[in-house]
């Protein structure tokens, strides 16, 4: 019942957000639309980690591996096909296959949580170095030159499905990215409310108990990890669509750390939290960058420390807790007033 009510709330909130996304181009200028587009693409990435870490209990320190693979898969196939639709599918498929292989060896190999973090981090650095060293004509897939540290410029952006001649305008690309964020969010909400979602939360809470009830924790964790990879890869495609460009820095350490900070500050164990954390911090970093008075990383670090110390649960759970206690107080009030009336 509670889940159902929460779901109604999520649907209403999403509907409002969708309307806002569609009308936004009439109110804000193109530069800001472009900013919002990249924020939304990154928020999809934040959701991927928010899901596998917050609900699956898997702290993946290299979520950028899947983000980057998705971005490169999109770029390479968009250049070759000249059509974005199959490229987006490959941007999801390639990271999923990679997550399946990596996840299989880690999870079925019985690697503990801490080492899982170390391995995923290392993998993202390996991919960074690997792609970084693909400069020159020798490294190309079909017509697509990987370009090493220079990256791949001039990647075709999204076109209308089935009509490669019709390239989306920046406003349309913004709408697609914004709506995609909402759909990923709602999709994850449905997944978490399902039996599968309940079971992965149970496994996060107590793996031994779940196994003693007959659930194989490994397959559930692997599927969770793969879903995270799929979403991160999709975010990669959205990101390339924004800038028509991809370079190895997409795998770099800085971004991996940022995603984790978004989730911590927004609130682990919620889905709206990582989205809020991502949008808020990206906006702040952009503002600070425009001021050029303070170093953005310095501020980011300070914010992280303040949150870990003072708001350890993150923004969304803290706000929800406050709202619930307010609600409990107002619900408790009526009997009191009745007593007052009697006396």
């Amino acid at each position: 019942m509670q889940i159902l009510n929460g779901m109604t709330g999520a649907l209403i909130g999403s509907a409002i957000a969708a309307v806002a996304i569609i009308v936004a181009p009439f109110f804000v200028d193109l530069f800001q639309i472009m900013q919002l587009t990249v924020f939304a693409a990154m928020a999809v990435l934040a959701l991927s980690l928010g899901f596998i870490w917050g609900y699956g209990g898997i702290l993946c320190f290299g979520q950028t591996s899947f983000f980057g693979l998705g971005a490169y898969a999109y770029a390479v196939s968009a250049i070759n096909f000249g059509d974005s639709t199959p490229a987006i599918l490959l941007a999801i498929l390639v990271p999923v296959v990679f997550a399946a292989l990596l996840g299989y060896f880690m999870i079925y190999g019985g690697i503990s949580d801490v080492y899982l973090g170390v391995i995923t981090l290392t993998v993202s650095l390996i991919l960074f170095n690997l792609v970084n060293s693909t400069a020159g004509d020798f490294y190309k897939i079909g017509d697509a030159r990987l370009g090493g540290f220079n990256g791949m410029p001039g990647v075709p952006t999204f076109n209308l499905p089935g009509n490669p001649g019709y390239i989306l305008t920046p406003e349309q690309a913004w709408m697609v990215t914004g709506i995609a964020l909402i759909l990923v969010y709602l999709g994850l909400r449905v997944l978490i409310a399902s039996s599968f979602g309940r079971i992965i939360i149970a496994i996060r809470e107590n793996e031994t108990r779940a196994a003693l009830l007959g659930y194989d924790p490994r397959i559930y964790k692997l599927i969770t990890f793969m879903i995270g990879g799929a979403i991160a890869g999709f975010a990669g495609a959205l990101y390339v669509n924004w800038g028509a460009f991809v370079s190895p820095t997409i795998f770099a350490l800085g971004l991996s750390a940022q995603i984790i900070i978004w989730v911590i500050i927004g609130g682990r164990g919620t889905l709206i939290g990582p989205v809020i954390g991502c949008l808020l911090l990206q906006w702040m970093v952009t503002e600070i960058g425009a001021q050029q008075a303070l170093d953005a990383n310095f501020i980011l670090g300070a914010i992280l420390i303040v949150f870990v110390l003072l708001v350890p649960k993150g923004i969304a759970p803290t706000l929800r807790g406050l709202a619930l206690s307010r609600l409990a107080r107002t619900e408790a009030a009526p009997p009191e007033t009745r007593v007052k009336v009697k006396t």
Partner: protein
Amino acid sequence: MSAPLLQTSGLTIRFGGVTAVDRVDFVLKEAELRCLIGPNGAGKSTFFKLLTGQLPPTEGHVHLRGQDISGARPHEIARQGVGIKTQVPNVFNAMTVHENLWIAARHKHTPAFATELTDQILTQLRLTGIATKEVGQLAHGQRQWVEIGTVLAGEPELILLDEPAAGMTHEEVERTAELILEINKSRALIVVEHDMQFIKMIARTVTVLHQGAVLIEDDVARVLEDARVRDVYLGKGLAA
């Protein structure tokens, strides 16, 4: 003659130089209620871990209705119909009492039937009043009941209870004893317990473990009068 519900033969586990369970031959019939006692470190919980696949045996075998399950993984053994309440409660802390049981029931059943079964067990265990409470916030005794409920919701045919009465008030202990006898009407149980009063309430046949091996296995009255049992519980010189 059909195979017994549970049979171990020469079941042994060693940790380095320590033999925690030492060549245990144990037979449990269908629908039997067996109590397993022994002093601290006798190997009772380790024996349970071997039965449920949480530890692989160094030597020997475990057969469930004639099928060899030694070395199988915990979820595989659970699917064969073995449920366990562990010594330290293993529950889903951040989830409600209802969700804890529902997850267990969901393994075999559709979501709707799982909800029905959960409500039924909550009523049986008188937990309906705290169904929406988070398990992490409950008292130890209540957590024990939640775990027992979770085990029941999985509908196992063999239930292992490791110190089910620990941390309970006298009244709760009596209710636990009643519950065990009720469960035993349809299912087999092995109960590990320290509390002799509790053992007397429920026991028929008792197996005593000492230093990993079976010391004696007999009717409860005879076991409790046995000089060797007193020796291992009280320490040798004292009982003599």
